């Protein structure tokens, strides 16, 4: 547990670094004497953006996220397995092989259906 506390100490530093930089910037930042309504307009190559940016994306994007998540689950199960190989030996490998192969079936299906295309 001590190591985790030490890690917490490190994270505290990781918070301090960006915050201190932002505070420094806050102290030194200038303000414009005269402001224009153009200044805070959204930049789009000098044009007025047509419609907001927060709009709907195409469902194709979702398929990528989906397959990511399912393989993420697999990776999570791999970690405890990876540590137990030496102890459990062949059994562990066969077990995981089945697990992986079943998931690879899904991968093959996704590949054939073109779900992994990103455009």
């Amino acid at each position, binding site marked *: 547990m001590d190591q985790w506390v030490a890690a917490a100490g490190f994270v505290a530093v990781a918070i301090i670094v960006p915050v201190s930089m932002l505070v420094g910037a806050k102290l030194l930042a200038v303000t414009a004497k005269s402001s224009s309504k153009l200044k805070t307009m959204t930049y789009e190559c000098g044009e007025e953006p047509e419609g907001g940016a927060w709009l*709907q994306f195409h469902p194709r994007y979702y*398929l990528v996220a*989906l397959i*990511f998540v399912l393989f*993420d689950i*697999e990776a999570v*199960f791999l970690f*405890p397995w990876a540590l137990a190989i030496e102890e459990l030996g062949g059994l562990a490998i066969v077990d995981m092989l089945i697990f992986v192969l079943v998931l690879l079936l899904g991968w093959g299906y996704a590949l054939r259906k073109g779900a992994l295309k990103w455009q």
Partner: protein
Amino acid sequence: MTESLIFFALAAFILLGAVRVVASRDLVHAVLWLAVVLVLTAVMFLMLGAPFLAGVQLLLYTGGVITLMLFGVMLTRRHHEIGVEVDSSRRLPGALGALALFGAMACAIFRTDLPAWPSSAPVSALEIGRAFLTDHLIAFEVLSILLLAAMIGAIVLGRQSDFGDEPETVYRKGGRP
């Protein structure tokens, strides 16, 4: 002392996050508040002696679910809808129901004679791996089948939600299919 202080602070932030999750008008904000709740829960797991679970929570739960949710929001939002309305007619019954449930549960918790809080060493990932591969092997393998089913199901659903035609063919026809 320090531990309970941290615990209470954590609990307060988790509850605050949870309130924002269910009350935020902007869905993206709600999702990000859920991310806060999940990350803080990971810290809670650490305090409960489950470091591996904390890692899983961060890697899988936060990384995966939040990504999915963000994509879900981005894919189902039209730009004239900025926020999602909380149905005001349901707010009162909802709050009452939730409060009632909480009251009942709190009552039960206070009345139950809980055993003493055992102090335990953190569970290592190795032990969990051993449990997976011996005691819970069947569940482990069945899970893979379930994930396969989920993947195929979601792909089928996802592809149905696609256009009938690929866009490449649609714009060439110059009209909607």
